């Protein structure tokens, strides 16, 4: 199978978040960046498993500046064959999806995989957008993907309060949720090999952004926690009813 895996770079959940003086951009000083876990742990690893079982190639794609190469190299170290980076600092999700679709259109992938969302913006939009640009089926929140021939796939996906099983023929776009695969840690050999794998840098296609971030603010500070004595649970119930008004 010829597989494309979209990977993005995101701040680690544990990093402190601060913005530039005009509050228009994340201040990247001291921010620890990682590969988006849903892309890395589930989408990429399942793609590698399919390649191991059925043959084929796994290509990574990222839309971002040169700083992102570090994250892309990690994906190559985990086992992807080659990578493409569309060289830009994308201002919107639609732009990212447009760039990926432009690349994919020329390559005719059997499968385009990505994580169900990024852990910084949680938009969950890119997969659906790519699928629409390419007029392909889109299966979201996949927790299981089976195919014996690389042509017809049976997929389990999370839905509100349950699970759905669907069947779809390649080519299609799929977003990966927890359960699809098990995280792989790159080994020394993989890291060495990644250095010589091809990472092609491509100039973006023209696109007019339609939604842009104008500013960031910090949420209002949480008021201090009210402590209640463990023997006085009636008091807690009273507060939840009269003060918090949630029961």
């Amino acid at each position, binding site marked *: 199978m010829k597989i494309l895996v979209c990977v993005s770079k995101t701040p680690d959940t544990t990093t402190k978040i601060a913005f530039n003086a005009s509050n228009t951009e994340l201040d990247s000083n001291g921010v620890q960046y990682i590969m988006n876990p849903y892309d890395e742990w589930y989408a990429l690893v399942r793609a590698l498993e399919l390649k191991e079982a059925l043959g084929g190639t796994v290509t990574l794609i990222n839309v971002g500046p040169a700083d992102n190469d570090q994250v892309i190299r990690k994906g190559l170290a985990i086992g992807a064959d080659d990578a493409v980076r569309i060289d830009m600092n994308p201002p919107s999700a639609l732009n990212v999806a447009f760039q990926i679709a432009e690349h994919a259109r020329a390559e005719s992938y059997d499968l385009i995989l990505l994580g169900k969302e990024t852990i910084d913006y949680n938009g969950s939009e890119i997969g659906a957008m790519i699928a629409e640009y390419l007029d392909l089926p889109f299966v979201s929140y996949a927790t299981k993907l089976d195919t014996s021939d690389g042509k017809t796939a049976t997929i389990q996906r999370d*839905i509100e309060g349950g699970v759905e099983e669907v069947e779809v023929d390649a080519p299609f776009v799929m977003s990966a949720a927890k359960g699809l695969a098990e995280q792989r840690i790159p080994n020394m050999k993989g890291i060495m090999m990644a250095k010589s794998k091809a990472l092609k840098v491509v100039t973006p296609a023209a696109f007019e952004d339609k939604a842009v971030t104008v500013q960031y603010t910090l949420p209002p500070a949480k008021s201090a926690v009210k402590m209640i004595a463990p023997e006085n649970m009636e008091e807690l119930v009273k507060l939840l009813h009269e003060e918090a008004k949630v029961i």
Partner: protein
Amino acid sequence: MVLVFAESQKGNFKKTAFEAVTYGYKTAQVLGTECVALALGTAHNAADLGLYGANKVLHVADATLDQFDSQIYAKVIAEASQQVGAKVIVLSHTSTGKSVHGRLAARLGAGSVAGVNSIPTADGGFKVKKGVFSGKAIAEYEIKSEVKVLSVMGNSLQPAVVGSAAPVEALAIAVPASRVKVKSVSRIEGIVPLPEAELVVSAGRGMKGPENWGIVEDLANVLGATTACSRPVADVHWRPHHEHVGQTGIAIRPNLYIAIGISGAIQHLAGVNNSKTIVVINKDPEAPFFKAADYGVVGDLFEVVPKLTEAFKQFKAAE
């Protein structure tokens, strides 16, 4: 005009649909325009969407829409929006809404923001906000395209009754054949799914073992709450995976989140810190969760939880 896709399940509208209509109604007020709801497939009591502010309800009744395919839904919603000349399209930020949202934006060349949690403003550009970086910041976006697509984060506003039953008009749109075959759908019956739950009782490793969960379930039953758990608890199969909340699990924002024997690691908080009220029960006064809590109880959960259950029982009996 604001067009709201009102999601239904087995023909019934859910709370998220009423929230979306309320959001659409308020957005229409800001823009000085009408709010129209759109129902797809089997839909009972569609006129009731008027209660939440829809001026009318458009209904594409084709029963093939009872099975979900993002491609078909996007096509039908896009076509409906073009027929009525909608400028803003509102969806719920649910697994269905999220799977369609991006497609609609791409299809219509529309700017989009997914997971908004406040009503847009329209002076000096169309602007709207959402929570980002695990709730550590709020981002404000400006959408510049003529058509805009928004998905509303669950529980970010209360559905409010502002009107009366609305006229329901059948809308004829050709539904193409789906390329995704749905083979089975299984839903956990009888409980409110976590993303929709208003009350959640959650427990972690402090429970010591799966055999002790009776006290958590008792508390949840008395409250009519849905149960959740921390990730390590799901990883070792003390609890089913669908209960796992946090960065790698489900993100929820109930009115009340009661955390029992959970330390409050940042990855856990990422999925729950948008809850309206957080109660933390932990024997360690230094547990990081207390910093994110509204009410805290330092004590042994095996003693505190049954007492709390008893107090809720008395409260319910007195009500």
